[in-house]
């Protein structure tokens, strides 16, 4: 909370707001990519405070990776900001269950993105931050867009402290799972990702999910 009073943080918030304002002047039909995570939540809040009822796009990873209660929580949060929430998913999640691997990477870009472009969306606000990884830092630095739409990264220079300070100081509702995981991992390391997902095996996520999300290990 005290961090939010610092000039350093205030400057980053102002910088983010400036990026959004500038982007909104150039875009005809923008949307916010909202995963339900803390970073995209900040972006959604920032954009919504400048433009009401912004379009929100959410990808649903299906009931094998995201518990339905949590999915509902994400949608409730998104709908609290906008009445234009669009949810996309793939049938393959039901077919492939926990064996589904990187379906988002294929289906979102091959099916959803062309549809969004067809509907006139021309730019997207993303919650990517340089601090997250070197690949993201490079992507942001070189403006490497992975869709035909123009991408804006309002919180690119934010640290995890900025993110939490913004959430806490603005009293923004965030998904409850963060508190459960942060108790052990710490708020600096906690991430909201799909559970029991083989894609995150290499980060040892399953070990943590197995203890903290044991009810979700086996599902019908």
């Amino acid at each position, binding site marked *: 909370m005290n961090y939010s009073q610092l000039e350093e943080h205030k400057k980053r918030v102002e910088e983010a707001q400036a990026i959004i304002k500038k982007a909104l002047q150039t875009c005809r039909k923008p949307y916010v990519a909202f995963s339900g995570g803390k970073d995209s939540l900040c972006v959604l809040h920032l954009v919504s405070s400048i433009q009401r009822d912004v379009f929100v796009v959410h990808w649903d990873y299906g009931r094998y990776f995201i518990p339905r209660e949590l999915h509902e929580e994400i949608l409730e949060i998104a709908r609290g900001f906008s009445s234009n929430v669009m949810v996309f998913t793939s049938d393959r999640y039901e077919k492939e269950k926990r064996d589904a691997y990187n379906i988002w990477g294929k289906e979102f870009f091959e099916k959803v993105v062309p549809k969004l472009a067809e509907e006139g969306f021309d730019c997207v606000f993303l919650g990517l931050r340089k601090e997250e990884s070197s690949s993201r830092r490079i992507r942001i630095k070189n403006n490497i867009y992975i869709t035909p739409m123009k991408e804006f990264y309002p919180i690119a220079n934010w640290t995890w402290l900025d993110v939490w300070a913004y959430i806490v100081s603005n009293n923004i509702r965030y998904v409850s799972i963060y508190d459960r995981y942060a108790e*052990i991992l710490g708020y600096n390391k906690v991430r909201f990702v799909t559970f029991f997902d083989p894609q995150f095996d290499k980060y*040892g996520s399953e*070990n943590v999910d197995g203890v903290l999300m044991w009810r979700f290990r*086996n599902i019908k």
Partner: protein
Amino acid sequence: MSEREYFVEKFLKGLEKLPTPKDFKPCKITFFLSSPLSLTHPWVHFDGIVGYLQVRRILGEDFFLLSKKTRYSFPLHEKFPLAYYKDIPCASVSILESTQYKLEVMYKRFEDRWAGGKKKIYRGSGLFRDFMIQHLYVPTRTVIFYARADLEILEDLLKDLIGLGDNWRIGWGAVRDFVIEEIKEDWSIVANGRAMRPIPIRFLKSYEDSALLAWKPPYWDLSNVEECAVPGTRVELKDE
């Protein structure tokens, strides 16, 4: 002879040599640990440990050659030193001193120190892939289980146990000592009205909370998953 046939034959021959349990008594097993217990699930199942030790004793060093891709069936049946209540093994889940989880992160990385010659190694995927391993651990000095077992056979088997929980091979949950005490009441399945292990709800008259859980070994086998009462919650067993 196929690989599977070799292991099954060796198992069946070894099984005959195992002592047959005669007298099952309620008991409390206390393990004293010399390092924290790493977990990938909130509970350690005692029947899983006993089954594992028996199969390992039968197969000896061959146990470590078992293929992960092949499914073997090693039925212990009448040689299993734990009693059964209906189909449920009389063995509780672990009771720990604390449930305060801590995190330790380890990294598995390919090192070229001992690699001969020069060759491109892919570290993003394949055999030499880098791994970040997150260990959730509980700093507990003791782990307690309740069971109804043949105490003599059980004591002999437990001498083989090096560690409890996940990744004991790298030092987590190292067992320093253990004690088996005979007790009056059988707390292996239900104690003071609370489930001591996952119990399929079809065996229960009433239950407070349920979840999809494996209820008999091997616990990784999805075919053993069923709607069960959650350990630690209030339950009432169906009448005989």
